[in-house]
């Protein structure tokens, strides 16, 4: 099963070097284990834009943006045997944050990819 992990946090600051290193090692291990397919960090919304439809009108919002509480910091895509393994993976990833960036708070959400139905 394919899962997407989305990491959100109210903190604006990026990961500490120690956390970066630990995450790098985890990524390396998971690529070599054939499980991690893709991953990436995301820049703040100010570097992008929102294209919306509201009241039948399409508009491009290029900022300034209202402060959102949760900022999406990054994502990863994994191929795993199922939800149990996916949760175990997320716990290991978040434990690194706990260990290497004390005080950080955030959420790692994992979602199974939709599979086409007949």
């Amino acid at each position, binding site marked *: 099963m394919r899962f997407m992990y989305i990491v959100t946090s109210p903190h604006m600051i990026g990961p500490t070097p120690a956390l970066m290193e630990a995450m790098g*090692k985890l990524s390396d291990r998971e690529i070599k284990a*054939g499980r991690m397919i893709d991953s990436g960090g995301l820049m703040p919304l100010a570097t992008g834009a929102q294209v919306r439809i509201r009241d039948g009108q399409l508009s491009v919002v290029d900022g300034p943006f209202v402060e959102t509480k949760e900022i999406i910091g990054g994502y990863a895509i994994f191929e795993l045997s199922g939800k149990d393994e996916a949760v175990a*993976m997320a716990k290991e990833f978040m434990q690194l944050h706990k*260990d290497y960036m004390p005080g950080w708070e955030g959420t790692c959400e994992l979602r199974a990819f939709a*599979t086409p139905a*007949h």
Partner: protein
Amino acid sequence: MTAADAHRAILAVWRIEQPRLITSLARMLRDVPLAEELTQDALLAALEQWPATGVPEKPGAWLMTIARRRAVDHLRRNRMLERKHELVALDMDQQQQAMPDFDSALDDDIGDEMLRLIFTACHPRLSREARTALALRMICGLTTEEIARAFLLPEATIAQRIVRAKRTLSDSGLAYETPRGEELSQRLSTVLEVVYLIFNEGYTAARGEDWLRPELCNEALRMARVLTAIAPHEPEAHGLLALMELNASRAAARTDAAGEPILLLDQNRTLWDQFQILRGMQALDRARGLGGAGGFYALQAAIIACHAGARTAEDTDWARIAALYAELAAVMPSPIVELNRAVAVGMAEGPDAGLSIADRLVGEPALKTYHLLPGVRGDLLEKLGRHEEARAAFEAAAALAGNRRDQELMKRRADAAAAMKMK
């Protein structure tokens, strides 16, 4: 958490941690089968303790501590040990004390050890059955029960295969060796064969059967990704990964709701997994970039890529497929490849050209009982309006077909050809 939940959670952690545990122990013990056995002890310990204590904060470190302790115990217990081994044990002891929380477990570069593990599990000295069982056990961390379910065999059969295979390895002094350079490339084909066997075992499984059978496809894909990550310069590893990704991308389109198979050209292409196709194409590009365009797996992947890249069945580049089959036949001469080429040529140049290739295969001993030879001939004859000959070919195909579905399909086509003749 129920006992069943806890059990599943433990097995999930196990699957993640198992490769690192076994490679780490193999390095300590210089014996892969023994390392596998002792890591199993760590799993048993977890299954015993975690349901009561909960999964520890760092399950990987916990398992590693137990596993390494077992390894040290083993080294100590073994009275036959020479002094240098005792020193190793002592050294391990000190190491353990020096890093109590095992954060450094992440530091281990498992690449080399993983390569050794894979080549040991897939050793050509072992039978194919033994290799597949050992690979799923040692590389993928599947339990004996899971492997047995996946292959629809009794657990005792698989357990015995694994025990025997490990004994063969130990008795032959093959418990800890890694081929390098030239030998690695040669031995790699044995490894790829095992991976592809596992994939096909899952791929040919019908829908609705035990989920573990299709799961074999995912395990094979994962093994191929491991190989491409740790042996990135081997083009055929990328070729096989491409072939499997591209084949697996059609999983949702291959059968209808009732489980009846749908032929490739009749499949709903919107159900093909584009993300997986992209990955397959990327793997094929890497194989080609490494000079492996003409490899056994890369060529087959290239053929599937022609289908995967066609938006509709009509857009299929049959001329290219026919040329690729000709190349494949040169790499691995086989009447089945030639029959496939007949189909592609039939599509590219017309049924006449295809039929002349297929006709040359009649009388080929290897295809004597292969129902697709008369099946293909029937199809080409039907397109040429030679309905009576087509009917006879489809009848012959029906008589040879091994399963009910194929038999019925061939009978239907024979009837249709007969009806056309009456018109």
